[in-house]
């Protein structure tokens, strides 16, 4: 399958009281058609900013550098109205808080039809029919009647389904999902993930899923990229990374998640907290919290180097990490 999206050297700076600071630095990854990539990391790791930078959904005075090629077309520096034509039609996005992402004062039907009005040439009746279709597609009962309801008349799960219906109105090629399940309780979370999987299959849609929940990544994504302090520290297929994590941070994350099939094991958390935007050191950003850090880690930053085909990690100890971790266990 051809490459849908290729991102290289992506750097985004945001305006903070202390001036323009880089929230995302030098991020590279690619995404093929129908592929799904999980962007995972603690809050403040820059995963959400990375996703928003693709569509340039950033506050007024943010700056984006590097390259984002969508179907071979460079998006960084594209004029606003050209980029706008692409949003919703080819790349769609859904958000974490369905209650605040849906406009509380507009009927759900209208919030779907306005998208169709921009991206399709359906007439009023056609749009209304399509809207009903979309609601049914996302599993909302009696969609015909629910069109004229308001967001506050929907339950948490229903609101998320409605938001997905709105996003998929123009059958986009790529869906960007910013922590879509975080605000939902577990049972509904599972339904939403299955819904997303089914829709991707039926509509041949690629997906980038931003989350801090490794279980969600494991269940929904083929490939994963772990971000820390604005950089990708490890990238590969889920199977490769989960089986043999090559970066201490990924290892620490995996160890802090209970593994259903292994008997009682001690969960270990990672000490300390990720560095703020301002104070990123010269060496590897994870060094202060890393159990395997050497002198070199403090001085020069490890590049994101391939260890196996399709599997890369940014750590001087990447090669020897599995045996080191067994000794320390």
């Amino acid at each position, binding site marked *: 399958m051809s490459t849908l999206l290729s991102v290289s050297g992506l750097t985004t700076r945001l305006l903070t009281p202390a001036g323009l600071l880089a929230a995302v630095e030098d991020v590279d990854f690619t995404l093929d058609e129908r592929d799904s990539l999980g962007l995972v990391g603690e809050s403040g790791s820059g995963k959400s900013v990375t996703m928003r930078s693709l*569509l340039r*959904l950033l*506050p007024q005075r943010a700056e984006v550098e590097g390259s984002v090629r969508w179907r071979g077309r460079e998006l960084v520096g594209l004029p606003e109205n050209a980029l*706008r*034509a*692409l*949003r*919703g*039609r080819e790349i*769609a*996005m*859904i*958000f974490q*808080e369905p209650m*605040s*992402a*849906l*406009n*509380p*004062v*507009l009927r759900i039907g209208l919030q779907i039809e*306005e*998208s169709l009005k*921009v*991206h399709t040439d359906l007439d009023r009746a056609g749009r209304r029919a399509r809207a009903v279709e979309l609601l049914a597609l996302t599993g909302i009962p009696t969609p015909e009647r629910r069109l004229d309801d*308001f967001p*506050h008349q929907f339950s948490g799960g229903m609101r998320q389904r409605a*938001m997905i219906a*709105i*996003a998929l*109105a123009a059958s986009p090629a790529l869906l*960007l999902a910013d922590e879509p399940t975080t605000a939902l309780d577990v049972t509904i979370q599972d339904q939403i993930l299955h819904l997303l999987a089914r829709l991707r299959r039926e509509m041949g849609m690629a997906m980038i899923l931003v989350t801090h929940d490794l279980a969600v990544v494991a269940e929904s994504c083929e490939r994963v990229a772990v971000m820390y302090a604005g950089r990708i520290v490890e990238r590969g297929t889920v199977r490769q990374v989960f089986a043999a994590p090559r970066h201490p941070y990924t290892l620490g994350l995996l160890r802090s998640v209970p593994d259903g099939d292994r008997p009682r094991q001690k969960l270990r958390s990672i000490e300390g907290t990720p560095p703020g935007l301002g104070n990123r050191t010269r060496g590897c950003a994870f060094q202060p919290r890393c159990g395997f850090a050497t002198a070199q880690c403090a001085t020069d930053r490890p590049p994101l180097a391939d260890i196996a085909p399709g599997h890369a990690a940014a750590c001087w100890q990447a090669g020897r990490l599995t045996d080191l971790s067994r000794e320390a266990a």
Partner: protein
Amino acid sequence: MLSIGYVLKRLLQIIPTLVFIVVVTFLIVRLLPGDPASAILGDKATDAEVARLHAEMGLDRPLIVQFGNFALRVVQGDLGTSTAVKLPVGRIVLDRLPATLLLTVMAAFLALLLAVPLAFVAALRQGRLGDTVIQGCFQVGLSMPVFYVGLILLTVFAAGLRWFPVGGYGDTYLLHLYHLFLPALTLALSLAAVLMRNLRTAILDALTADYADFARAKGLPTRVVLFRHVLRNALISTVTLFGLNIGTLLGGAVITETVFAIPGAGRLMIDSIYARDYPTIQGLTLVLAVLVSVAFLLTDLVQASLDPRVAQ
């Protein structure tokens, strides 16, 4: 969105408010020192004449009886006769009300016309020059006494540039609007300042809200994002604020009418208080209270239509 039940409920709520206002006015007026008869007859009248007028006005009867008569007649639509100009209060109030209504409606319209676009500009250019200049001007506008602003506008635009007449009210409907522009602008300035500041904050919050991001992510044109999504949400709190300030707008009309020589109900109220013209004070207060309650209800309904969560 607006259920009839909600509208009816709100309409019924006006009744107790009106009763409260009528009773309060009736009592306050009776507390005013200085017997109205002597206020009307002035220094030179003899005591006999004062006593005669006092009895004629029925002021010697107990309060409850006076209130009974007043309430009875109000129900029949008779607001009594003004002791100052010896004309039925109903007719005077009807004669003077249009000027004040027109003035306050125009002022409200101008206030919104000023506040909404400027709040948008200030919000979109948050922190930059445009924002500080707009906020600064409104801060000055808010702190200037109404009569002073009125005087400046009159001197510059009316007497100076002759764009507008110097006060007065004109005869035809069109002339009314032409005459009332400057006073309405004077009255609108302070209200616009309040609305602008509130709306600017509301727009800032709406701009950064998720539904705005989602709207942009849907690729909707900026116009749709700003008006249908951002402004519509931001206006809700501003409409409530507007409702709260209607009584104040009317209060401001009192001075504006004096400065611009407009024969409005505001000035009639002040003259009546000074002349201890009980019937006119009571009648006018009741009429004004009804109008303000209706206006208050209208803004409530507008808000309910804007925000479905309220009307349920």
